[in-house]
């Protein structure tokens, strides 16, 4: 059974003059216990998509979706409050820049205790206070912080970036979520610390069977940790498939360019040679091209590309392109 199944999700930004389609008919499916990477450059709408899933977008964003199933249950048939109750119980999110997300005026302990779910506590208020402390301590142990005494008493600025991110993950775990959305959890972090956070997420996925939606702007960073990957460009769905399919045999010219453009992926290339790259830059939201938004930059673009392509499926490898690169691999 699919954990989450989203079809044709669009997000429109309402401005006084016109409405802008920031996310254009994106599909996303996740199975239980899966780690899915959501990859896209800046302005691809990946964070918007995550925010639309947990429902924190404000009124100026209008979300349309054809199908939004959560563990087989159709969420679009429920009222907004019921939907919110389900999502807030089962889905948790962590953000980039953990330091900025934590309250600088309260200690880690206070913030963690606040996050502990009241429903899990029993007894009188003095018993509850003890249980709350214990629960906060257990959460810290779960994310691999051994010196909980020191950590509980300290303020966010006294901890390192990686420790703060661990605390954020601990808070996200407080309600025992089934799906964790990690929005660039390791941006602006040292590579050794990045490894720590990714390893922690992977172990949570293995031990607690928690599904993770890992959002990143760099394809390279996530390939080691994900089972499946969805690629987005400028608000449009590009390609989805298993990590091996995306990385070794991408069907979409954009994914091909992403894989080829980074110097570390293709080890064969000689030192200081020119890298393969797409011309031009990412279109801004006010001036989006019609049809396939990659069109002006795409090396394979033809006249047909002024119409948005439909998603085609090759053995669970979905690609949205008129001229996929499928035939170039024999």
């Amino acid at each position, binding site marked *: 059974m699919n954990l989450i199944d989203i079809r044709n999700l669009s997000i429109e930004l309402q401005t006084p003059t016109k409405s802008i389609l920031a996310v254009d008919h994106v599909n996303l499916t996740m199975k239980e216990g899966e780690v899915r990477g959501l990859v896209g*450059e*800046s302005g691809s709408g990946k964070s918007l998509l995550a925010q639309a899933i947990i429902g924190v977008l404000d009124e100026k964003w209008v979300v349309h979706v054809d199908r939004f199933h959560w563990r087989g249950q159709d969420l679009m048939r429920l009222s907004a409050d019921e939907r919110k109750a389900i999502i807030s119980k089962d889905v948790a999110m962590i953000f980039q820049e953990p330091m900025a997300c934590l309250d600088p005026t309260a200690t880690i302990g206070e913030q963690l205790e606040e996050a502990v779910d009241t429903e899990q506590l029993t007894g009188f208020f003095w018993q509850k206070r003890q249980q709350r402390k214990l629960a906060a301590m257990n959460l810290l142990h779960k994310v691999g912080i051994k010196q909980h005494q020191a950590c509980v008493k300290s303020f966010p600025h006294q901890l390192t970036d990686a420790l703060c991110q661990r605390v954020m993950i601990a808070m996200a775990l407080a309600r025992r979520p089934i799906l964790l959305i990690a929005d660039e959890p390791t941006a602006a972090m*040292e*590579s*050794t610390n*990045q*490894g720590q956070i990714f390893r922690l997420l992977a172990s949570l996925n293995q031990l607690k069977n928690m599904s993770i939606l890992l959002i990143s*702007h*760099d*394809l*390279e*960073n996530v*390939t*080691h940790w994900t089972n499946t990957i969805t690629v987005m460009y400028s608000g449009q769905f590009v390609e989805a498939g298993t990590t*091996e399919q995306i*990385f*070794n045999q991408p069907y979409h010219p954009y994914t091909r*360019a*992403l894989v080829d*453009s*980074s*110097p*570390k*992926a*293709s*080890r064969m*290339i000689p*030192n*200081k040679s*020119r*890298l*393969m*790259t*797409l011309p031009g*830059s*990412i279109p*801004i939201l006010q001036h989006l091209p019609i049809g396939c938004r990659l069109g002006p930059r795409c090396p394979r673009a033809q006249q047909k590309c002024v119409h948005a392509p439909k998603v085609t499926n090759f053995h669970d490898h979905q690609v949205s392109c008129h001229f996929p690169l499928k035939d170039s691999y024999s």
Partner: protein
Amino acid sequence: MSDVLLKVINLSKSYQDKNYWFNRKSIIALEPLSFNIMAHKTLAIVGETGSGKSTLAKLLVGAELPTTGHIRLNGQTLAPGNFKQRCQHVRMIFQDSGTTLNPSLTIEQLLDEPLQLNTKLDETERHQLIRETLQKVGLLADHMSFYPHMFSGGQKQRISLARAIILQPQVIILDEALASLDPSLRSQMINLLLDLQQQMGLAFILISHNLGIVRHFSDEMMVLCKGKVLEYGKTTDILQKPKHKYTKKLIMSQRFQLLNH
């Protein structure tokens, strides 16, 4: 090709703690180090935060005064306070290019400033030079009358590159200049930098923590940790046979990116 462009001898930096009159402590940010760079070559500096790599960049560009040691460019010593001489030849590009451009000036005014301060060209010559430099970094001459906020992140990075190369420098320091760019723009930028290195014979000092870029881009590399030089040598040698434990750890943490499954 064989002559040394930039020669750094025993350069070090330590800060004095001014709070205590007696028992004054000094913090060593950078222990004495020496290296040479030739024209057309790139030296990469790798290390974690607090390893002194930004201090080294500041010392080279002249923003900080070194405690010991001196820097020689083409055999000529760069005096610590002589900015006129230094900013002609050693230029720097920062990580966050958007914030280093003055938002109230147009691109022409931005690029005109270093020319007015450092050269004796008249107005038409300066205008011509700005036009040529913009074309060199892949922008149009029409962009001269634009303000910085009208550009995207990748274009801003190109403008700061234009500002760096407009004085025909010999050394450019890239302080994490590629880290904040999107992958497809980053590869464009790498191509552009490599082309400029070919054309103008620039020497780059690349400060980065992305070993993939370091491997592709640099000829020599230096691993810094807590102000000490752990390894210094050819990039391929160090990445293939790291000697120090710290370098091994650094490579291991990015190994999954380097090995390509």
